[in-house]
């Protein structure tokens, strides 16, 4: 319990650091967000008025105090570009990225874990070579190129899977509850939209998950090999247990630790990897929002995105650490 409290306190500290870092970087920009928001043809008076209204001409420290004050009240400020509350903007864009990331993690696990196990079982033989080749290629392919290839091949040429976007043009989105199409469509009891949403998720999630799947294959393989070479597994084997049983009973459990660690860090990198994937797949997520915000020097929005990504990363890593407790044999066996 004290451990969790300590971790939560640390998380708050880390998040505070992230906001401070984001604030410093975004305010070190030598450029003028007013010009960005008001367009090319705006007059000087309009720009001055915009700065005044958005508090951009206050001293840096004052702006920071105002921002932190708002943040403590759960208000991330107003986007300079969209003039919406950042919280509203994030609520609109985050679910799409979350859904894509979660499905990508699921794909990565569904592909990476079995491949890693197979590779370890057939060490040095053809299945291992295939799995390792996949792991190497998946870890080295630029994600945006993979995205373009996948879209051209599976959508345009073969027509197997739908193109960009979360839903077909003719399926109107279900009423928003969670913002996750798969869940909202089920809540609306609309299997057609669910199916449509799932089909739209396949390509971008596979592309986004490819790198993670590759990494996971490698980690699972090497973790399993290490465990398999240890004494108690040798003992189990010598007792006549089949390799599959050994893997199922002991090895997977022990190999889960390094794999869990990888999963935690993957989640963080997936969120940022989404920036590139979302561009190609016209995915209405936080990646595109972050890019557009950075381009239009929309500081509050960039800070909002940074904060939410930092939060997601911290929460997932906390969960991973807690999950150690369940998998660590020293704890579960004692």
């Amino acid at each position, binding site marked *: 319990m004290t451990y969790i409290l300590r971790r939560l306190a640390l998380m708050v500290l880390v998040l505070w650091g992230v906001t401070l870092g*984001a604030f410093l970087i975004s305010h070190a920009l030598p450029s003028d967000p007013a010009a960005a928001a008001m367009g090319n043809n705006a007059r000087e008076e309009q720009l001055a008025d915009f700065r005044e209204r958005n508090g951009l001409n206050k001293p840096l420290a004052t702006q920071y105090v105002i921002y932190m004050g708002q943040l403590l009240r759960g208000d991330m400020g107003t986007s300079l570009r969209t003039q919406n509350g950042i919280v509203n903007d994030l609520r609109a864009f985050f679910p799409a990225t979350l859904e894509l990331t979660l499905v990508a993690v699921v794909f990565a696990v569904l592909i990476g874990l079995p491949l890693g196990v197979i590779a370890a079982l057939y060490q040095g033989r053809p299945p291992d070579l295939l799995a390792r080749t996949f792991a190497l290629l998946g870890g080295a392919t630029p994600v945006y190129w993979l995205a373009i290839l996948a879209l051209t091949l599976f959508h345009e040429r073969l027509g197997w899977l739908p193109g960009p976007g979360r839903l077909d043009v003719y399926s109107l989105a279900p009423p928003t509850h969670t913002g996750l199409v798969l869940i909202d469509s089920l809540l609306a009891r609309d299997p057609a939209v669910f199916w449509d949403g799932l089909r739209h998720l396949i390509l971008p999630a596979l592309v986004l998950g490819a790198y993670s799947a590759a990494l996971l294959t490698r980690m699972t393989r090497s973790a399993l090999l290490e465990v398999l070479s240890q004494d108690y597994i040798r003992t189990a084997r010598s007792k006549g247990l089949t390799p599959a049983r050994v893997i199922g009973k002991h090895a997977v459990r022990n190999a889960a630790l390094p794999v869990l660690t990888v999963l935690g860090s993957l989640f963080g990198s997936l969120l*940022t990897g989404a920036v590139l994937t979302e561009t190609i797949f016209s995915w209405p997520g936080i990646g595109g929002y972050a890019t557009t915000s950075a381009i239009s020097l929309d500081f509050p929005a960039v800070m909002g*995105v940074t904060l939410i990504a930092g939060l997601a990363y911290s929460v997932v890593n906390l969960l991973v650490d807690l999950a150690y407790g369940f998998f660590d044999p020293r704890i579960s066996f004692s």
Partner: protein
Amino acid sequence: MTAALVAERGTGSAVWRRFRRNSGAMIGLMLLVLLVLLAVLGPLLVGSPSTQDLAVRLAPPSAAHLLGTDQLGRDVLTRVLSGARISLGIGVSVMLASLLVGSAAGLIAGLLGGWWDEVIMRVTDIFLAFPGLILAMAISAALGPSLTNVMIAVAVVSWPTYARLIRAQVLALREREFVEAARALGSSQSRVAFRHLLPNSLAPLLVQGSFDVGNAILTAAGLGFIGFGAQPPTPEWGAMVSETRNYIAQAPWASSAPALAILVTVLAFNLLGDGLRDVFDPRKGV
């Protein structure tokens, strides 16, 4: 002290023997040697990567243009070869910069401990929680898009890994006999660090470093792809994929060639990293 040195030398030649037997590592190394040769000699063999010839724009591969031409009629092969220097340069310098900063931070944290350790580790926590690409985008936007700024941006997000690695090594090695012996003999803190701890952390650093060169190339190319990197007409591979992707239907070769170049380079570094890890730590892999 002497014993430690002898032991190190002994490990060195054993390592090389194991390395030669590791096919992945050897393939990686050979690919890298080839890439470096191309990067050094390539630009001498071909003309300027910026020569335009609008009459032959988007031409398919032919004898005159082995990998075809791009939207401005520039020779794709020439550009890919010229880009090798840039991408390798980015990868290696980012790795070195983050290795230097990260190792220094990690050494201080590990050796001095206490508050130093606490503060440095919390700072790495913050940097790790920071979404990398967004941080890089922000830095790139703040400093203006250029290759140097991309390198700074990528280095800023990758140093914490080294800091943690070195700190863990230091904590593990600190208790080992030869370090304690050196201490007992009156070696200063910095002497212990540079003569004993750092050389003995070389193996994990090499492994991490070779993976990181690949990662840095990928990240930098990603930044180039969204327009935060090299400026035209610089033949940076990521920027090349980005510039030519609008023409993928008309000229798939123009974007595939630089993309494959990225793939092969990153692959080479990953193979090398894998191999080095197997070699240094024979328990894992093989």
